[in-house]
């Protein structure tokens, strides 16, 4: 990549960071972290949006006695009302206490909502001839009643208009309930409701506004009238305080966690390396990574939840790994240049990063948007970290090692993903059996102890929503105090009923009421309060309009009657307001609502309206003190079907957890697959993959046992630890096992380099997460603790137990497999896949699988470069060392091989090929050779579709026997043997069995037709020949068989062309059988044969399928 392009990549990154910063917004609403389609979440969101006033602050005041409390509350209200730039409204006692006349509108409106029969009855009661008797009765009552309520009411309601059926059920408007909102029973504790004059849209705005309010209160408390304030306690709660507290505590958590982690990183780094420059550079880059991640996260996600900001702690713990591993490797190998170190380490870092990123991205499938966002943010951060640490960290620290060596092979971007070709481990470093035994014993001890603990108990699952709530701060403490002081029932649930209009809401409300009645009967709930009597009835209002108009005109008549009966104008205040309301109602054309301050204040407690939506809220009281969310699930579902949303924090946790549980497989399955895939790509050795899985398993049971012993439980937040623990576990196993490979299993060397680095990484991660344990958010705290234990276990097991395990397994078989590692057949060359291929070939038309196979071949070329490099090396002599040409041909060979494989599957699955491209002259060579009756040995190469030769001969009436090695899988050997038999070709497995060779000779002598390929070096008994100008260990098989049987030797190639299969029969190889007694003559014949094939190979090298090394090593 040119430096120009490199620079542009960085510029692009900077632009993205800039754009992200411009988009960066923080969201403090915890509910946005939860599944939006969950009824309890929807209900809570509606509740928060419509029924908890975002601008309403609740100020509580406790004084030594009730008189003082009332007096101080009044003074405070008066002072706050003066702050018109801060406070729009202060309510410190029921509004109707200050403006009782305003209740008239509400009462008139309630009459208007009555059934038409009841409302029409009023016209009779207020008929002119009925007024005097009614007023006489009132006077009698006022003279004789001893009820203070009657006296008060009838004084102001002389026509007794307030007696209506609906009102008797309006418990929400009872005197006790009204006062209960403002003062405790003993009157010593009072509440003031403040409406902010400014929009509190951000937590900064909340913080600033609250500071101003605090200042006003403090000024009053310390002013000239400060004496009465002695012993008085003022506290604050309400949404602005919660918002400010949550955001501030999150900010506090983040800054403390980041500071503490950074400090620990610095200390550990210093203790380990005693160098300032790398330490400071590391800290600077970590800061840069956090900043860039936040910006890129904002670019991708837009608004970032404050909970998702917990990514910082997660990220620091991971990002530092990449730097430290790099740095440690640079120190351990002073002879290596920075590009070489990068080349050596980058694949493990990048694969580890990809795995961890994928694991975190999978969180998006978990059904919790918040965790998904956190996962996305961490994934972005890990990507940035890997990029920054791989590319930037080392060069400034080792300026003299920055440049690559002059003779260094060109380095492509994909090399970062492919582990360099490691020399095979010639010998496992001598091992002390003591350390093996100790490791095994320790492993057993940990595993058995953990299992023993888990047999008795397993970590529980916290079904409540506590993990999502902030820890008890001032706002929550004050709210709890309010609940106790005002004698409010604990933990009511909310029923939110939305609808497009009043009629729809009423319909839903009525249905909900029936369901709730059933729930009360079944003791699912204790009782409920639905303001259905206060909800406007559109039908009634329409029917009552004419009556209202008539009643609205009765004002003068009623006033005159009152005065005649000895009342004065004071007695008419309420009546006149009622009449005015009826007059307005009579003139209305649609559903009307009361509009004055008192009405609005009352209604907004349970009614919300927007231009296109109406909502009403009811309260559901559980049957017991504790909400059993599981029991309410069915009720919640029934209500939700009717668009009534049952909600509350208690329900939230359970519902969300159920969602998480139901989607867990969506998260866990890909996560496990990712881990396995990543381990596979990194190791491609089953033993090492299983060792990696073993680390994760042991760490997992260790974590679970620790959780049991410490009494921790799983919750919505700490479930997020799973991908992190998996990710770090994979990281550590990758680093350690690849280091073990690099160092030939030298434990001391591995521990000195990567082991030391991982101890530092793990230590910082544990410290970072440990610091989260002190978070003010319970969920974050539990996440921190679980992560600290899980990552700590991963680190300790990887560094201390994994190396002995690795040596234990590699000590037995490692050498053998290592030697053959690049010569072995690919893992997919197995019976299962072959059967699948055969089945697919039978069903699917050829074009589609060929296209897919070509794509897969390209992927294989990209991601299996080590194996592909084998082909390139095989081709190099053909191109006289021209590597680009060899690479080009090798890549084409991979694609062609994919097509050939499809062809082969089709033939083996029974398809008949007839489009042979050949001439009679060439076929005559075959017939001539056979006519001699001494048997014919067809010599072929791994060129083109050589297997098709058997089919061709079968169509020519010749039954061929193929001489072959056993396939890597016995099942595959049998499968292929049977397939060939179906199209008339026999198979003779030779292997190393000398008797098999005798059988071949016998058959040839009997005139059989057999085929053998000669372009691969034999395991033993080969002779050096010249092949494409390079020494090649050729197989003497053909020459030996010729000597033993006198068979004809015919060379054949079958090349795939666009219009068919081109059959090329080389002129028969002529030999003197007597001369073949000498090995030199046999070598010469072999040389002659191979040389004859060279032009054919050159011509169609892109169909020469040599996937195992064919040239002698070291040349």
């Amino acid at each position, binding site marked *: 990549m040119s430096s120009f392009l490199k620079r542009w990549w960085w510029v692009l990154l900077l632009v993205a960071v800039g754009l992200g910063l411009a988009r960066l917004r923080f969201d403090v609403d915890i509910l946005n972290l939860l599944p939006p389609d969950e009824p309890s979440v929807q209900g809570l969101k509606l509740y928060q949006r419509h029924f908890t006033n975002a601008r309403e602050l609740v100020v509580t005041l406790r004084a030594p006695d*009730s008189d003082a409390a009332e007096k101080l509350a009044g003074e405070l209200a008066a002072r706050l009302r003066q702050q018109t730039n801060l406070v729009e409204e202060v309510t410190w006692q029921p509004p109707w*206490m200050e403006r*009782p006349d305003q209740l008239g509108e509400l009462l008139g409106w309630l009459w208007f909502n009555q059934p038409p029969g009841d409302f029409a009855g009023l016209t009779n009661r207020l008929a002119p001839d009925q007024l005097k008797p009614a007023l006489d009765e009132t006077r009698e009552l006022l003279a*004789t009643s001893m009820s203070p309520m009657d006296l008060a*009411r009838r004084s102001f309601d002389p026509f007794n208009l307030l007696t209506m059926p609906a*009102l008797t059920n*309006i418990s929400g408007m009872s005197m*006790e309930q009204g*006062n209960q909102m403002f003062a405790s029973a003993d009157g010593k504790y009072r509440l003031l409701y403040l409406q902010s004059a400014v929009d509190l849209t951000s937590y900064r705005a909340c913080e600033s506004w609250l500071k101003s309010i605090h200042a006003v209160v403090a000024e009053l408390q310390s002013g000239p009238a400060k004496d009465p304030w002695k012993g008085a306690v003022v506290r604050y709660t309400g949404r602005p305080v919660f918002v400010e507290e949550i955001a501030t505590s999150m900010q506090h958590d983040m800054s403390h966690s980041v500071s503490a982690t950074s400090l620990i990183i610095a200390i550990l780094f210093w203790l380990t390396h005693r160098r300032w420059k790398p330490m400071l550079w590391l800290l600077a880059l970590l800061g840069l990574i956090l900043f860039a991640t936040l910006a890129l996260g904002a670019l991708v996600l837009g608004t970032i939840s404050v909970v998702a900001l917990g990514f910082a702690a997660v990220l620091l713990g991971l990002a530092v790994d990449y730097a430290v591993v790099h740095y440690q490797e640079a120190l351990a190998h002073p002879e290596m240049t920075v590009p070489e170190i990068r080349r050596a380490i980058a694949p493990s870092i990048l694969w580890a990063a990809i795995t961890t990123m994928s694991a975190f991205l999978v969180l998006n499938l978990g059904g919790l948007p918040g965790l998904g966002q956190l996962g996305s943010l961490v994934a972005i951060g890990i990507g940035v970290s890997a990029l920054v640490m791989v590319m930037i960290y080392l060069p400034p620290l080792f300026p003299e090692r920055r440049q690559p060596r002059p003779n260094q092979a060109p380095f492509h971007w994909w090399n970062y993903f492919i582990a360099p070709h490691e020399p095979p481990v010639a010998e496992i470093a001598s091992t002390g059996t003591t350390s093996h035994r100790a490791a095994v014993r320790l492993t057993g001890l940990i595993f058995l102890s953990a299992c023993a603990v888990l047999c008795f108990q397993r970590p529980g699952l916290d079904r409540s929503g506590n993990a999502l709530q902030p820890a008890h701060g001032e706002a929550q403490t004050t709210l709890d105090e309010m609940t106790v002081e005002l004698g409010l029932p604990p933990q009511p649930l909310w029923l939110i009923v939305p609808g497009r209009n009043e009629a729809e809401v009423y319909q839903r409300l009525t249905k909900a009421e029936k369901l709730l009645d059933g729930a009360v009967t079944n003791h699912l709930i204790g009782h409920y309060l639905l303001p259905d009597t206060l909800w406007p009835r559109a039908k009634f209002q329409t029917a009552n309009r004419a009556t209202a108009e008539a009643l609205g005109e009765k004002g003068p008549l009623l006033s005159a009657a009152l005065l005649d009966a000895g009342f004065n104008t004071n007695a008419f205040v*309420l009546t006149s307001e009622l009449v005015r309301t009826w007059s307005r109602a009579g003139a209305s054309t649609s559903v009307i609502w009361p509009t004055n301050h008192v009405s609005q204040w009352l209604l907004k407690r349970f009614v919300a309206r927007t231009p296109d939506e109406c909502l009403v809220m009811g309260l559901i009281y559980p049957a017991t003190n504790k909400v059993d969310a599981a029991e309410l699930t069915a009720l919640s579902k029934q209500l939700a079907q009717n668009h009534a949303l049952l909600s509350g924090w208690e329900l939230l946790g359970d519902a969300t957890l159920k969602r998480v549980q139901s989607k867990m497989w969506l998260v866990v399955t890909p996560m496990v697959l990712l881990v396995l895939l990543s381990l596979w790509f990194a190791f491609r050795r089953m033993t090492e993959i299983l060792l990696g899985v073993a680390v994760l398993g042991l760490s997992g049971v260790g974590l679970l046992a620790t959780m049991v012993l410490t009494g921790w439980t799983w919750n919505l937040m700490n479930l997020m630890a799973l991908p992190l623990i998996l990710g770090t576990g994979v990281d550590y196993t990758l680093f350690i096992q690849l280091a073990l490979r690099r160092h030939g299993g030298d434990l001391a060397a591995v521990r000195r380099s990567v082991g030391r680095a991982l101890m530092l990484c793990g230590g910082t991660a544990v410290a970072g997460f440990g610091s989260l344990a002190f978070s003010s958010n319970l969920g974050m705290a539990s996440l921190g603790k679980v992560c600290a234990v899980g990552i700590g276990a991963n680190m300790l097991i990887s560094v201390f137990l994994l190396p002995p395990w690795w040596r234990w397994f590699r000590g037995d078989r490692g050498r053998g497999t290592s030697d053959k590692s690049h010569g072995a057949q690919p893992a997919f060359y197995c019976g299962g896949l072959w059967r699948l291929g055969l089945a697919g070939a039978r069903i699917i038309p050829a074009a589609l699988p060929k296209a897919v196979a070509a794509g897969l071949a390209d992927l294989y070329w990209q991601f299996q470069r080590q194996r592909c490099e084998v082909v390139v090396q095989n081709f190099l002599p053909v191109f006289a060392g021209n590597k680009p040409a060899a690479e080009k041909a090798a890549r084409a060979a991979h694609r062609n091989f994919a097509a050939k494989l499809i062809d082969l599957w089709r033939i083996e699955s029974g398809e008949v090929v007839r489009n042979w491209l050949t001439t009679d002259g060439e076929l005559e060579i075959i017939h001539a050779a056979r006519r001699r009756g001494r048997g014919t040995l067809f010599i072929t190469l791994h060129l083109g579709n050589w297997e098709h030769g058997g089919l061709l001969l079968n169509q020519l009436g010749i039954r061929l026997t193929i001489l072959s090695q056993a396939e890597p899988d016995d099942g595959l050997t049998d499968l292929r043997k049977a397939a060939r038999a179906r199209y008339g070709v026999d198979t003779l497995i030779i292997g190393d069995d000398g008797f098999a060779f005798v059988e071949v000779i016998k058959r040839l002598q009997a005139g059989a037709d057999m085929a053998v390929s000669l372009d691969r070096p034999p395991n033993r008994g080969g002779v050096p020949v010249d092949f494409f100008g390079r020494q090649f260990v050729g197989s003497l098989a053909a020459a030996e068989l010729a000597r033993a049987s006198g068979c004809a030797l015919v060379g054949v190639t079958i090349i795939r062309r666009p219009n068919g299969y081109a059959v090329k029969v080389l002129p028969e190889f002529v030999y003197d059988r007597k001369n073949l007694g000498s090995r030199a003559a046999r070598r010469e014949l072999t040389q002659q044969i191979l040389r004859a094939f060279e032009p054919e190979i050159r011509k169609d090298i892109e169909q020469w399928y040599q996937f195992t090394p064919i040239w002698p090593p070291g040349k």
Partner: protein
Amino acid sequence: MVSIYAHLAAGKMTCAFRALRGGFWVFIFLATIVSRAADYGSQFNKWFEVQTNLQSWAGDFTQTRTLTVLNQPLVSHGKVWVKPGQFRWELGQPAQTIVLRQPDQLLIVYPRLKRAEKYPLDGVPTGPMRDALALLDASLPRDRAAMEKNFQLLSATATNATLQMALQPRSESARKFIGQVVIAFHTNDFTIAATEMKFADGSKLRNNFANVVLNLPIDPRLFATDLPTNFTLVEPLKK
């Protein structure tokens, strides 16, 4: 169920009380007479002594209600019987309202409406209702210490053979309901002459007693709370 009417009452009282409290002259006036009240302390004490030793008393009364919504006061007549811890008021002839006070409850019966209201006296929450009930007791005080716990003596005025004591609730919340209580008694025989409650909104309720007899046996059935079966009993303070 106490309903929205109560708010009207409480609200009106609050407004009126605020107006009254705003009048500075009230304080000047009260301060002046409090200084003279000490002169009548011995007579007041004597009256309480008589009350303490009373086994019972009964009498007729004329109740005058001066309401702010009416141009003229409403006058009605009734009878009262008092025993320690119990009393019975009958208002109207025939009785329109009967108030029965038991140690643990107060029963207000409306014979014409065939309705009764029961107020348990031990479970009344703090607030205007509790203050109102306390004031009902205060209008028939028997113990000076207990009375002064809740009331402050504002003034004492002697006219002819009658001593009139003005009392003010000590609780600010109670004062929002009743601004002043007046008790007048005859200084010759220490029988009650009148009680008056001045409400915060300016309304007044005055009872002038006549034909008071002391320590006569009272038929216990007068204090019985049994209601006819066709009466409706409600408990307004019960939630």
